[in-house]
């Protein structure tokens, strides 16, 4: 009977419009933040940072972005990898052109540049829908990766074709490059992602979010009510790409340190992020986080079990992972198309009645 909303009456619209109208949810969030900020930084080491926490945060950011486009606005995109590449290369070019710039404006600018590119590739969405659009975003994926491979300007004409993040700092503390502290990079990414998760939540519960969902659910009716399809769809592409671009910048500069377009930003990335939001929950901010966590942790767990415990060959384990990923996607789509976020909600609803369900 811990999770109860009876007795919590709202007497004003502001109270009812709050993000977490229920007291227990607010406490839950505070607890998560306390652990994330107060406990994790003291326990973190390089392994946890590089294998779990940074990938989780970077992918959560990308998943937030893609969820805005796919989950909220209903425009499917298979070009996430390509847009992450735009963010990464934009960050690289800015960092190498202005070596003393603080890293925060770098990430924001990378996001904005990606947003512009996203709008460009979102333009066809006015005339085409559904699968046709999916194919159009594939064009973005392949084209962008090709561009970053072919034109030396993007990787400063270096011999390897790779991009490597130079050291950059936030308020005087290094966050990229070889000499960073895991706790610092973690806290930086965490703050960034937490802040923009809040922004995303605000957007989806306001007018622009409602317009996105209206277009998703019934575009003709939305237009007749006065929602402009083009601007609405393009705003979804812009915001989504902004997030994905920032994710790409963090992914490349903070987590990986160096990247090569075909490997780091291939179509597999697009699918991976798409899977995150399917498993986590389409149209759910929380779901973006849950999905990212799931898809980051699953391969690690599988590897631990299959390779380390059962002594399987790494290649075989990789194949099992691919297979399992497919099975999970199908499983979630069949059983719970709204993903982990919905399961969490159902659990809370059960908990409301527990232990007296009748």
């Amino acid at each position: 009977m811990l999770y109860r909303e009876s007795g919590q009456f709202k007497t004003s619209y502001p109270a009812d419009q709050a993000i977490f109208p229920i007291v227990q949810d607010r406490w839950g969030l505070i607890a998560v933040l306390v652990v994330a900020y107060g406990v994790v930084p003291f326990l973190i080491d390089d392994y946890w940072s590089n294998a779990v926490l940074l990938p989780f945060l970077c992918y959560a950011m990308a998943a937030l972005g893609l969820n805005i486009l796919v989950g909220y606005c209903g425009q499917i995109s298979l070009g996430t990898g390509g847009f992450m590449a735009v963010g990464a290369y934009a960050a690289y070019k800015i960092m190498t052109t202005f070596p003393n710039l603080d890293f925060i404006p770098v990430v924001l600018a990378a996001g904005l540049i990606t947003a512009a590119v996203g709008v460009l590739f979102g333009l066809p969405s006015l005339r085409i829908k559904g699968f046709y659009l999916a194919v159009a975003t594939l064009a973005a994926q392949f084209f962008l990766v090709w561009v970053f491979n072919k034109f030396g300007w993007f990787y400063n004409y270096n011999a390897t074709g790779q991009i490597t993040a130079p050291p950059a700092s936030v308020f005087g503390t290094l966050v990229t490059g070889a000499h960073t502290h895991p706790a610092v990079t973690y806290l930086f990414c965490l703050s960034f992602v937490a802040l923009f998760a809040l922004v995303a939540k605000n957007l989806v519960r306001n007018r622009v979010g409602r317009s996105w969902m209206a277009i998703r659910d019934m575009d003709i009716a939305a237009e007749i009510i006065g929602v402009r399809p083009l601007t609405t769809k393009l705003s979804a592409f812009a915001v989504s790409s902004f997030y994905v671009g920032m994710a790409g910048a963090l992914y490349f500069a903070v987590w990986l340190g160096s990247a090569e377009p075909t490997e780091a930003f291939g179509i597999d990335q697009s699918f991976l992020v798409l899977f995150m939001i399917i498993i986590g929950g389409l149209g759910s901010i929380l779901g973006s986080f849950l999905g990212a966590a799931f898809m980051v942790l699953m391969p690690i767990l599988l590897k631990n079990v299959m390779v380390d415990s059962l002594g399987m060959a790494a290649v075989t384990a990789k194949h099992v992972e691919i297979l399992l990923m497919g099975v999970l996607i199908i499983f979630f789509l069949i059983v719970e198309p709204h993903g982990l976020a919905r399961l969490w909600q159902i659990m809370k609803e059960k908990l409301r009645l527990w232990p007296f369900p009748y």
Partner: protein
Amino acid sequence: MARQPIGDVLLKADNISLSFGGVKALSNISFDVREHELAAIIGPNGAGKSSMLNVINGFYHPQQGQITFKGQTRSRMKVHQAAVQGIARTFQNIALFKGMSVLDNLMTGRNLKMHSTMLEQAVYWGRARREELEHRGKVEEIIDFLNLESVRKTPVGRLPYGIQKRVELGRALAAEPSLLLLDEPMAGMNLEEKEDMCRFVLDVNEEFGTTIVLIEHDMGVVMDISDRVTVLDYGRLLAVGTPDEVRNNQEVIDAYLGVAND
């Protein structure tokens, strides 16, 4: 509250002709709707009733003829402009936003009245917050008016058909339209639900003074509540007049009522 007297012509359709490929959906239709009036369009299936509504709110572009609304004449118009001018509508087959709550559906109806920028909404501060709360208040009035309080936060996809029809009316009302187009608001309802819906339609007309154009198959309802009836048959205009005039029009009886009443 007393009903507002019927005023000047609000909407005028002149010689509207519409065809799809070779199929003529509407030919040379002219009629008008006056302010505060409750006008009905009737006719057998395929008579062109829905097409007429689609022309009025700019979804179909007629090959010929023009629409005058609030003194502005146009032959082609975008759907969005119609919404800006104050035309709202409901649909024959419910076209709600199924994944959104009743509250959000109605709030979307107020979309055109909100002006905060995306940046303001992102931080939910200042104008965005003020607007959100102010319009929430307005929407609550409509929720109250249509007795939707108990389902306020339920996703509309989970609601029964009759309630969904009501939510759709609410969404159109949320826009505070000067012309409300209702496409078969009572189709598929049982008697009780029909009576409720009739009450709501009449109340809207009386309390808000909203001009209404209604398509309906239930003759009893149409003859009861409308001020004037327009009869279409195979895309042609058969008759226009008060319910009594239409009821006694021989052509109408032959083409439509006679068959229906057999």
